[in-house]
């Protein structure tokens, strides 16, 4: 029996990545799958004020850092939320404000630097173990991330591939999503998604025992409920109005192929499990900002799911 641990949407959180690497041993899983959206969403400037003094604004709270120890602690705190600390000074800050395109380069450099650190950590931690780690970057992850993952000895990039997990189960994987209001790195129209899925599904030897590891959840599955937004990206009705935003192409693929298991993320508040036909669909959700790794343990049997549970670690 293969036991997989699935987590997703850790968005740059060092704590969550470390927990992910430790989750196999902690939960007794032999396969780790990261569903996508590895990279963070914000850079936090550490503005040098002279000497050992830095000023940092985190979550609209201003911190004056005056010692090496405080600097270390603040860096850890910023990283724990998945943000990227960036040492700068008042002059550079003015430059960045005048040329916002430069911030994009900072983002790219920080994101790729951290992904590289994560791969190095995985190689170091998992060397000498039998743990298998699969990863398919999500719609928020820039394309350059793929190359770094490919260079890892222990983390396998599985985007767009059919992967044989064990003697009975194959996995298809994709981090691409349907269109979002944010025009993110990997998103496309539903017909393009359908073609993407079909290209993988057609290669499956035993589709009914397959696992779909697809970042976006299926449409109207309950795992894809997100706050309805107005044209200014403001949640309407104080977030009380939830609407389905999943992929119709994926739902159709699941209904047609009837895989054993379908793993998703993308909608952080969509934590849950459901069935589409007999297919078990799971979105463990995400609480990366709090350093909590939400996940799912699934015990795969031949032609069936032996057991599963959502975790909060």
């Amino acid at each position, binding site marked *: 029996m293969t036991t997989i641990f699935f987590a997703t949407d850790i968005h740059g959180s060092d704590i969550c990545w470390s927990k992910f690497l*430790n*989750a196999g041993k902690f939960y007794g899983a032999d396969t780790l799958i990261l569903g996508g959206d590895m990279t963070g969403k914000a850079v936090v400037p550490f503005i040098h004020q002279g000497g050992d003094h830095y000023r940092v604004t985190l979550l609209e709270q201003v911190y004056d850092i005056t010692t090496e120890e405080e600097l270390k602690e603040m860096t850890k705190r910023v990283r724990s939320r998945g943000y990227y600390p960036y040492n700068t000074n008042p002059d550079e800050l003015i430059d960045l404000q005048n040329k916002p395109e430069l911030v994009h380069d900072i983002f790219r450099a920080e994101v790729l630097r951290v992904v590289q650190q994560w791969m190095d950590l995985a190689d170091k931690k998992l060397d000498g173990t039998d743990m298998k780690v699969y990863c398919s970057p999500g719609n928020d992850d820039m394309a350059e991330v793929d190359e770094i993952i490919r260079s890892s000895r222990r983390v396998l990039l599985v985007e767009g591939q059919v992967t044989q997990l064990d003697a009975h189960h194959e996995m298809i994987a994709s981090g691409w999503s349907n269109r979002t209001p944010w025009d993110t790195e990997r998103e496309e129209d539903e017909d393009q998604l359908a073609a993407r899925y079909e290209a993988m599904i057609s290669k499956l030897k035993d589709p009914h025992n397959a696992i779909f590891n697809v970042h976006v959840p299926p449409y109207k599955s309950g795992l894809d409920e997100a706050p309805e937004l107005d044209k200014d990206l403001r949640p309407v009705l104080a*977030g009380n109005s939830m609407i389905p935003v999943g992929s119709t192409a994926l739902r159709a693929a699941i209904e047609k192929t009837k895989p054993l298991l379908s793993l998703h993320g993308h909608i952080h508040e969509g934590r849950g499990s459901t069935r589409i036909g007999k297919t078990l669909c799971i979105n463990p959700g995400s*609480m990366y900002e709090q350093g909590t790794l939400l996940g799912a*343990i699934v015990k795969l049997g031949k032609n069936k799911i032996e057991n599963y549970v959502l975790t909060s*670690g």
Partner: protein
Amino acid sequence: MSNLFVRKATGMVRSWSVFDAFIYAFFSINIVTLGFYSFSQMYFFGGGMINALVLSAVFLIFEIIVYSSLIAVMPRSGGDYVWMTRIFGGGAGFILSITGWWFTLWLWTPIYGDMLRQFVLTPLLGVLGQKDLALWFSGKGTPLFVSTMIAIAFVSVVIALGMKTYARVQKYSFYAGMLGLLIIIIMLFTGSHESFKAGFDANATALFGASSGAYDATVKAGTDAGATTPISGGTLNLVFLTLPWLVFFNLWPNWGATLYGEVRGATDYKRNFSGMAWALGSVTVLGIVFFLGVSKTIGWDFYMQGNGAWWNYAWGYVTNIPPLPVWPYPALLAVFLTSNRLVQIVVILLMSFWWFGWAGTLFLSSTRVIFAAAFDRLLPEKVAELNSNGTPINAMLLMVLPAILVSYLYAYNVGAAADGTGGFYTVTLAATQGIAIMYFGTAIAAIILPYKKKELFNASPIAQMKVAGIPMITIAGVIFGGFLAFLLVEWMFDPWLNSGGEGPGLYGISFKNTWSIAFLLGCYVLSAIIYYGFKAYRKQGGIDMDQVQKEIPVE
């Protein structure tokens, strides 16, 4: 955080409107359904109602701080259940939350049903000229049960429609209900007591078949019932004693708060706080305005006498039907100021939106908790299934079927003495008590959060909110927790504390009320059985439920 340093990524939304948050909090402390209903039952206290409203609001501000703070530290996490589970660990969060958000709502069901007939069916049928049907609906037993079944049907439709639709229904209901209330307040402030008295006698007879001289008869029946509560004044002790009943109305500004989105800084924290605080403040002011309007035209003493006359009968202390044979709904009393039927119908219809816009809250939160427990494998997977229309049919059944049983016990007042007193109908306030116990757990979680989850707190948007070095969340938790402890002690030891150990006391849900204690204990025992039963069952299947909730080591 400056937008300059935030990239375009999924979920990077702007802040929600404070006004929208205000509307939901405002509807949760519903001045009409919860307010008018509880004010009416509070006819026998010595503390002034205005004083009590203000004093309770002072304490409830700290509830708002506690919830705004917890949302800031752990947003979109599932509320009380997740907060308590993560801070306490173990089953405490499950047992308190399942009881508070799910089982206790079974008891709220017949209360919603009672409100439906008192606020909508009876007055509307009365002004539409359907006297017999109106009087039937205001009767005991079957009418209450039927009304409750109608309420269940309505709320089930709401669940089937989904939150997207109902959120809009609520918003439109807010405007319609507010228009109705505005008309009522204008009528109360522009009318005279003499015209009210004449209108009361005329309409009570015309609409509900009351004998002539209903006004004077109501004064006598209410005085005999012991109607004493003043509009204001009273010693601090007497005002405090009104609070355990008053919170039935206003303990809920946080009801929809756990749905609020990500908190990215002090601004979002303030938005959460403001939405709830403005609602609490507005409702408190509105309550005071309502009391003053009642006092001016209906007459405060008559208002309380009418309430006393009705509830003394409803609770079984007397058997004679009161002179006004229906509940003295303040909106109905206000429209007695006019003899224009159309105006009466329109105003009562507009006021009914307070019920329709609010009633969905009955099962919506419960459904979420049932889903959360199923996702945690502490309930069968089946309960979280959606049917082909996307309706959580099994979760609804878990709400509806027990609610029907509890409604039966409540409507037919099972267990009442031969003289009609006592019985299951007396446990009304236990519906508030069950949720207050859960809030108490949350308040304790808030107090210890900065110390037990130091890193989590320090990396949160409220890390710097401190007074004299003590985190604001801890201070607010102590005050709110202390207030809840006061309520819980008063409810539980009511006769000893308030009436020398005799009678039902002031609130009727003390340890002397077997039904109340049995209901609450039954709920806790049931949730403990579910928790420990499923834990053992999952263990047999190779899943250690303790392990899946434990924090994974980082190193």
